[in-house]
């Protein structure tokens, strides 16, 4: 178990996972509670054309991804709020556009030379110090944002129609949440790529949510599970010579399936999970 971590590339990969895991707990909890999973996935996918053009244009990939992902989030907000398009339809529309534009740019049209595989599925074994620094900065940003806004995120998610009557700065808090999620997603691109960000930010939190009875339980549990699944996936990839991003995603999916099955078998039917089903 220890032997693979003698290599610097494995140490870097493990360190990257250790930086992303707290983000998976802190932001993953908000993502599953606030139903932002599809949004998170689509910000990741939207960053793909940014990664493709970064090389030829000579801009840092993280910056390009952040620009395109941020632009995507802003456009999504406008489309769903102003144009009256349902949020999930708008997300799907922009998601398809982003992937298609990325593929066209990556083809001979732009001669970018970027590796589509790496952009889509990550390259955890090629993590360098600049990537680690960006992830550390993303973690710091998320921790600061949570310090100020975590209470408001929860109160707004719990009862959005009353947020204003409670005197909460819900709009500001929501904007900050979306921005730190976008930054965290970009930080995770080197590890898991545009298409697998959910493996970090959605799958562990969704798994722990089956059992968590409080927000701290959900946050700590999701962070811990992300760490275990990340390191486990890394070792699996090392042993099998498989892409690590995909290995983490497969491991996460398997753990979720097992957890959901265990919950269904050990516990009686859950209390009503929808607001409509109140008594």
């Amino acid at each position, binding site marked *: 178990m220890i032997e693979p971590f003698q290599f610097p590339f494995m140490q870097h990969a493990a360190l990257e996972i250790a930086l992303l895991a707290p983000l998976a707990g802190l932001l993953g909890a908000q993502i599953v509670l606030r139903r932002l999973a599809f949004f998170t996935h689509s910000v990741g996918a939207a960053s793909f054309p940014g990664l493709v053009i970064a090389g030829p244009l000579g801009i840092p990939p993280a910056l390009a991804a952040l620009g395109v992902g941020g632009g995507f989030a802003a456009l999504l907000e406008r489309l769903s709020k102003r144009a009256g398009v349902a949020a999930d339809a708008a997300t799907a529309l922009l998601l398809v556009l982003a992937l298609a534009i990325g593929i066209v740019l990556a083809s001979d049209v732009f001669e970018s030379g970027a590796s589509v595989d790496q952009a889509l599925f990550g390259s955890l074994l090629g993590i360098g110090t600049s990537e680690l620094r960006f992830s550390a900065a993303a973690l710091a940003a998320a921790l600061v944002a949570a310090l100020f806004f*975590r209470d*408001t995120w929860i109160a707004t998610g719990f009862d959005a129609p009353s947020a204003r009557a409670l005197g909460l*700065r819900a709009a500001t808090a929501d904007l900050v949440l979306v921005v730190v999620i976008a930054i965290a997603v970009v930080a995770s691109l080197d590890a898991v790529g545009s298409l697998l960000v959910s493996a970090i930010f959605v799958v562990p939190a969704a798994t722990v949510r089956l059992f968590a009875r*409080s927000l701290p339980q959900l946050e700590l549990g999701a962070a811990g599970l992300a760490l275990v699944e990340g390191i486990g996936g890394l070792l699996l990839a090392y042993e099998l010579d498989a892409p690590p991003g995909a290995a983490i995603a497969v491991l996460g999916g398997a753990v979720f399936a097992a957890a959901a099955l265990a919950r269904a078998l050990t516990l009686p039917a859950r209390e009503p*999970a929808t*607001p409509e089903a109140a008594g």
Partner: protein
Amino acid sequence: MSAGKGEKLLEVEGLSAGYRPGVAALSDVTFEAPAGSITAVLGPNGGGKTTLFRALLGETPQRSGTVRVNGAVAYVPQTERARLDFPVSALDVARMGTYAATPWWRPSGRAGRERAEAALERVGLADRAGVRFGELSGGQRQRVLIARALAQDARVLLLDEPLSGVDGPSAERILGVLAELREDGHAMLVSTHDIHQARAFDAVVCLHGSQVAFVPPAELTPELLARTYGGEMIVLDGGERAVVVQHHEH
């Protein structure tokens, strides 16, 4: 009787409110609520009960007339509006009422927690503080939401159909809490479809697009109810009892 009883906490004069310019969803509302009072807000669905509350909270885009409030206004929604699947305890929910009073750059601390605990105690749920909101009964959830409003330190409470969807004993407990808050000098507006219940309160505001009446409950005559509800109501027992036919369920 507590100090300050009889002092006007809420004065509304010529209030009109709506969501689009030039279109008033509610107009000509004039009433007042003193400290230590419960005012029923009656009216058909779409009659303006929700619009009145939103206007008093400053949430309607269009508003004219004057609203004078002594202290803060807090809102108690129907419990079905909250997410029952959230991993938050009764105490967590009550604490949400204290977040705004905490400066936004400071996480809410011990003072907020103590205020929330006191509010839960006030509604008789101190022993349920650690229970998940979604696992409480409908009546208990309603009382937790009242505690959240109390934690806001508001003297004026707007309650949106607090008795709908709860069983008899739970409704009695909620009414007991409201009676205690009246003793404490709160002014409460309670939107309701229960005319029998409205008769037990201190005053009644009848809304049907505009204000039909602001009267003491004794003056809630069958004629007035008929004007308030239009064709949506059946009066029984020569006006002693009235049943509202609801077209619309939440």
